[in-house]
């Protein structure tokens, strides 16, 4: 499946990749390409990427889903549309609690709990849970043809795959009943033993953690217990969506050695999970040495006699002019040689991937994408950089 059919046919595209490779911008560019091909598209990003709002022609980007003004690019959108939002962890958690809390009192207790506040606001691991949650809402109830999810950078990227399972396991009856025997209204000897075990465990944990924290956690679990079923159902559904045939995974990397190493780790992790990688996009993976044709990847320039060429166009050229011309040539030759090295890094990553996985290469742009036309240009370069059956030089 070509890159354009990936975005034409999938219901969800998950972009994973290391930090600093332009993954968020690539996700937005893919969304733009899909929208212009007539699909109703939503791009969800987790990273606070400020430039993205500009690139999409929006005033700002936050938890509210906004419509991107595609008219700027001309009238021909074939009925497609593009919307975007940045997942704000705190706001999304509150919205989730609002949806699944059984009553106003439970909701108020959760929102006031310090553990809840810490988890939902300042602490890192909660991002993956809420991203899944937003994804579930968007795919299930958003009415979009395509949702593109831009995941957090490398190390945490696959947390998102584990998040539904973790959450479900964490909230399973056993954990809750260990600490709050009344939550499950247990009876009988077995239950009393569990309750007793819970007390002992609490004593131990207080030794390890100190006061307050544990009390707050128990409070947190107590209110969460009432919402457990809602959580688990949604987590299971989110997991199904991630493993559905309509979901595509796109690995985004650059051609820098460290990005490629991180990407290789992600690739192996995905393959190990039996998740098919549908495309690898190498963003900024070569220097365009043909200024008139930036999509063209060249690793070598013809040998020319620079002095003779200069004299042919400027017969009176002095020594300084000749020296500048030679330096210009050397600079461009050096860039072509760099491309050759980039090529080796790309090949190293690609060789381990199954043949049906698309390889896409996009050039390094001189400036960051800063408006919709710039994003559209990147989208075109991505579609043009799609190489069928590409298997190295």
């Amino acid at each position, binding site marked *: 499946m070509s890159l354009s059919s990936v975005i034409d046919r999938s219901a969800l595209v998950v972009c994973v990749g290391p930090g600093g490779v332009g993954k968020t911008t690539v996700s937005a560019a893919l969304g733009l390409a899909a929208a212009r091909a007539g699909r109703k598209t939503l791009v969800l990003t987790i990273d606070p990427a400020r430039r993205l709002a500009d690139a999409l022609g929006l005033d700002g980007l936050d938890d509210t889903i906004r419509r991107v003004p595609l008219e700027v690019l001309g009238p021909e959108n074939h009925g497609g549309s593009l919307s975007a939002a940045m997942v704000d962890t705190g706001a999304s958690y509150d919205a989730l609690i609002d949806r699944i809390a059984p009553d106003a009192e439970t909701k108020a207790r959760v929102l006031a709990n310090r553990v809840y506040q810490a*988890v939902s606001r300042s*602490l890192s691991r909660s991002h993956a849970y809420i991203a899944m949650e937003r994804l579930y809402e968007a795919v299930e109830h958003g009415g979009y043809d395509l949702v593109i999810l831009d995941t957090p950078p490398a190390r945490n990227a696959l947390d998102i795959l584990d998040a539904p399972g973790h959450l479900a396991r964490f909230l399973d009856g*056993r954990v809750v009943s260990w600490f709050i025997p009344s939550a499950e209204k247990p009876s009988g000897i077995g239950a009393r033993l569990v309750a007793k075990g819970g007390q002992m465990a609490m004593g131990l*944990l207080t030794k390890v953690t100190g006061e307050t924290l544990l009390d707050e956690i128990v409070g947190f679990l107590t209110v969460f217990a009432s919402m457990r079923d809602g959580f688990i159902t949604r987590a299971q559904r989110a997991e199904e969506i991630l493993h559905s045939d309509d979901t595509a995974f796109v690995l985004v990397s650059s051609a820098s*050695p460290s990005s490629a190493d991180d990407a290789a780790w992600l690739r192996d992790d995905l393959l190990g999970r039996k998740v098919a990688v549908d495309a690898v996009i190498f963003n900024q993976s070569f220097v365009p040495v043909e200024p008139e044709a930036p999509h063209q990847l060249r690793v070598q320039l013809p040998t020319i006699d*620079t002095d003779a060429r200069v004299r042919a166009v400027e017969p009176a050229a002095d020594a300084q*002019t000749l020296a500048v011309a030679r330096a210009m040539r050397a600079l461009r030759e050096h860039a072509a040689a760099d491309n050759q090295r980039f090529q080796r890094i790309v090949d190293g990553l690609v060789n381990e991937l199954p043949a049906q996985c698309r390889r896409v290469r996009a050039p390094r742009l*001189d*400036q960051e994408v800063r408006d919709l036309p710039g994003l559209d240009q990147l989208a075109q370069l991505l579609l043009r950089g799609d190489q069928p059956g590409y298997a190295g030089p």
Partner: protein
Amino acid sequence: MQATAGHAGTPRATELPILERRFLLFTGKGGVGKSTVAASLAIEAAGRGQTPLVVELGHRATMRSIFGVDAIGFTPRPVGHGVHAMSVEIDQAVLEYMAQHLPSRRMARAIVNNGVLERLFKAMPAVGEIATVNALRRLEAEVGHDGRPRWSPILVDLDATGHALMFLELRHAVSHLMGAGPMRRLVDDMARLFADPTRTRLHLVTLPDELPVTETVELHERLVQSKAVSFGRVFVNRVPHTGLAEATEVIARLQAAASAHGDAELLADAQFAAGAVAVERRARAQIDRLGQHVSMPVVELPRLTPDRMQVDDLRRLGTIAAGPVTSSESS
């Protein structure tokens, strides 16, 4: 906040040698080369007879690939060039923490072997970060056979900006959450360590592009306000150099001449050079902006080949990184 008034007149921290701190922390936006800078400074420290330890947080392939070793785990291992490296895996750090803080090994085992308890413990907010802090303190306390600290300096490759902030401002994040107890003591203790300029320096790594510089300026401003950590240097990585910055007129003339005579190859050379010079000029402007807004010494590191870094490259970078400050006014 406007540019720090008179920062040029303020005595700068780097009057003390950069490598003579126990903890060198590194952070910056993803992909700017934090690990490379940390690794090259570690090599430099080893070259000066120190016993550097590079610490990565969590699973990452970066240090492994920089030093060309097959695995880096929770136990420090030599990675060549006089450098040791380790990776603080959260799970292992949590187990270590529990073993240290429970009255008996039996209890620690009881918790560790109890899936429910272990899961609960790991799911608690900030536990991973606190266990990491615990591991860093243990490394700081280790002494060698001669009775001197075993690791010096300890170079910590913090995660990208967001995670690093969480880590540096841990005391603030957990202050409402934790009453008296070992975790609270550890967090308070670590906060003092980070803020102590004689023991710790935070180095920022950035690129000479608009967005990374803006993020660096904002990060610096936030940390100035929170007073969470004492600052070291800002490393501007991959600074481009064409050698043609003064030749723009000649380039423009050649471009026009090549275009008029239809020499496509020469024309492309000139266009490419003009583009590269423009990139260099923008980079220079960003470095100047950084120098104006950040009261930290700025050190420029050259853009090296995109291929695997060789040890010589790392040595070269390390020597520049630990060397005199390239103040932005000098160019």
